[in-house]
């Protein structure tokens, strides 16, 4: 990348040298976020298990069929099968959704035990986990925002420059070929990475919190009808679920990128803060 506007260029570390990439505050908040979001996701799936269906509208009884429904019905080899219905189309999901196996025993549960907290149907406990870690997540998130603005992490490291935005096309081609920047360019986030982080931080995460709040009958009383702006409480529940899976997709891509651009180097930089500047682009 040939960025004339780069602000770090003057202080660019030599290739192969270790440099201080992530501040202690960012590292701590990153790992708190990992724990909180993982628990929120897994306890959220257990809450979903109590009513494994998604609807659109103000109520679940609008006369229209569910958008998504996971359950069990008679059929299959063992006499029972797990089924998932999406927009009215039914799929046999025995072993994964609806009906799963634990130590050889079949049990009926929408999302299986290995992805849920607590593992087996226990709504009150799942709610206790979910709402505790929702607070951890929100407090951590506000700390991160305040810190990022105050320390100029946001302006300096995350906001794409005008010049960078013009290179989006090339950045997409580079990503598809697994070509990664080396030397000075590797000390900055690339433009796609910046956009992905900004979308997660300023769109997906605030939206999932808002959709969660829209499900609270107490907070629905804040302004009459505000929940209808997103289509009603059941729509909010559906959006909450969809955004959760979009975040999972982000995490999968994020972890994939961490692995292909140097797992140990990236992990070290998020633990000790030190990142070794790659000496050459490695095509894999």
């Amino acid at each position, binding site marked *: 990348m040939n960025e004339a506007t780069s602000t770090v260029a003057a202080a660019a570390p030599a290739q192969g040298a270790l440099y201080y990439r992530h501040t202690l505050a960012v590292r701590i908040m990153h790992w708190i976020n990992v724990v909180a979001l993982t628990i929120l996701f897994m306890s959220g799936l257990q809450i979903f298990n109590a009513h494994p269906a998604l609807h659109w509208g103000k109520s679940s009884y609008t006369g229209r069929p569910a958008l998504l429904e996971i359950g069990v019905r008679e059929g299959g080899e063992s006499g029972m099968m797990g089924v998932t219905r999406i927009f009215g189309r039914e799929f046999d999901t025995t072993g994964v959704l609806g009906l799963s196996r634990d130590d050889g025993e079949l049990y009926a549960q929408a999302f299986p035990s290995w992805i849920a907290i607590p593992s087996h149907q226990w709504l009150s406990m799942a709610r206790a986990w979910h709402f505790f*870690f929702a607070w951890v997540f929100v407090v951590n998130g506000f700390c991160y925002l305040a810190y990022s603005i105050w320390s100029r992490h946001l302006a300096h490291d995350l906001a794409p420059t005008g010049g960078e935005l013009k290179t989006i096309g090339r950045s997409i081609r580079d990503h598809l070929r697994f070509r990664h920047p080396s030397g000075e360019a590797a000390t900055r986030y690339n433009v796609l990475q910046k956009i992905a982080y900004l979308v997660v931080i300023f769109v997906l995460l605030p939206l999932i919190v808002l959709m969660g709040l829209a499900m609270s009958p107490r907070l629905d009383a804040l302004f009459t009808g505000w929940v209808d702006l997103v289509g009603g409480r059941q729509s909010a529940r559906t959006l909450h679920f969809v955004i959760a899976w979009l975040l999972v997709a982000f995490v999968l891509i994020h972890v994939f990128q961490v692995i292909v651009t140097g797992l140990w180097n990236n992990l070290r930089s998020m633990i000790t803060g030190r990142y070794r500047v790659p000496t050459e682009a490695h095509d894999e």
Partner: protein
Amino acid sequence: MNRRPEMSRRRFFARVLGGAATLALAGCQKLSQSEWFPKVLAVGERLSAAAGTLVAGRKAMAQEFTEADLSPSFRSNGTFRPQSAEYEALLARSFADYALVVDGLVADPRRYSLAELRALESRTQITRHDCVEGWSAIGKWKGVKLSTLLEAVRPAPAARFVVFHCADPMADDGKDPYYESIDMDDAWHPQTILAYDLNDAPLPVGNGAPLRLRVERQLGYKHAKYVMRIELVESFEKIHGGNGGYWEDQGYQWYAGI
């Protein structure tokens, strides 16, 4: 470049990660079943309750809907017919012998027949019922405001909670009657009513006949059905399991505003 060590290192890392995930999941399971950890998690409930009051205010009104939003049929959940001889006897005579008792920390304890309740000023509201499980249904409720009854019995200054004792036993042996409790903010709230009609017809047995609570800013399990007695108390610690409600005694949150 020799790729072998890299591959085995990756495989090793994947195994460590898999092992760690299994351990973490087992750890979460242990924590859920421990004595102390759920008490830590309960901090979240207290924060949510405080934030709910702070943000939405004590007097904020729940959303009311129109006839067009009504659910085609209002789902019956939990008890659909109380398993008790006393209730069957009341039902057999269409609740002609029913009497609602309002007592506890009040200046003037009273009893109301269904006819007396119906003769009092009524409130009609179309509201959304949100079950803790996740579903919602919209129904039209008509009943007497709880505040009307409170004005009549005059609560003592020490009264902090209103407890609703119900006719439906939750255990097979006829024990463990359903009960619930709310604080005085919800008790005096204009949308908190004791409903005797659902969708312009007398409340069906499945929905809590002859009288059920509507406390619109909380989840479904707070809306006690088959209400027989309303008791004003300073604390619910000595009532049944001591947590303020049947589901609360099973581990559910007393604050059901979220």
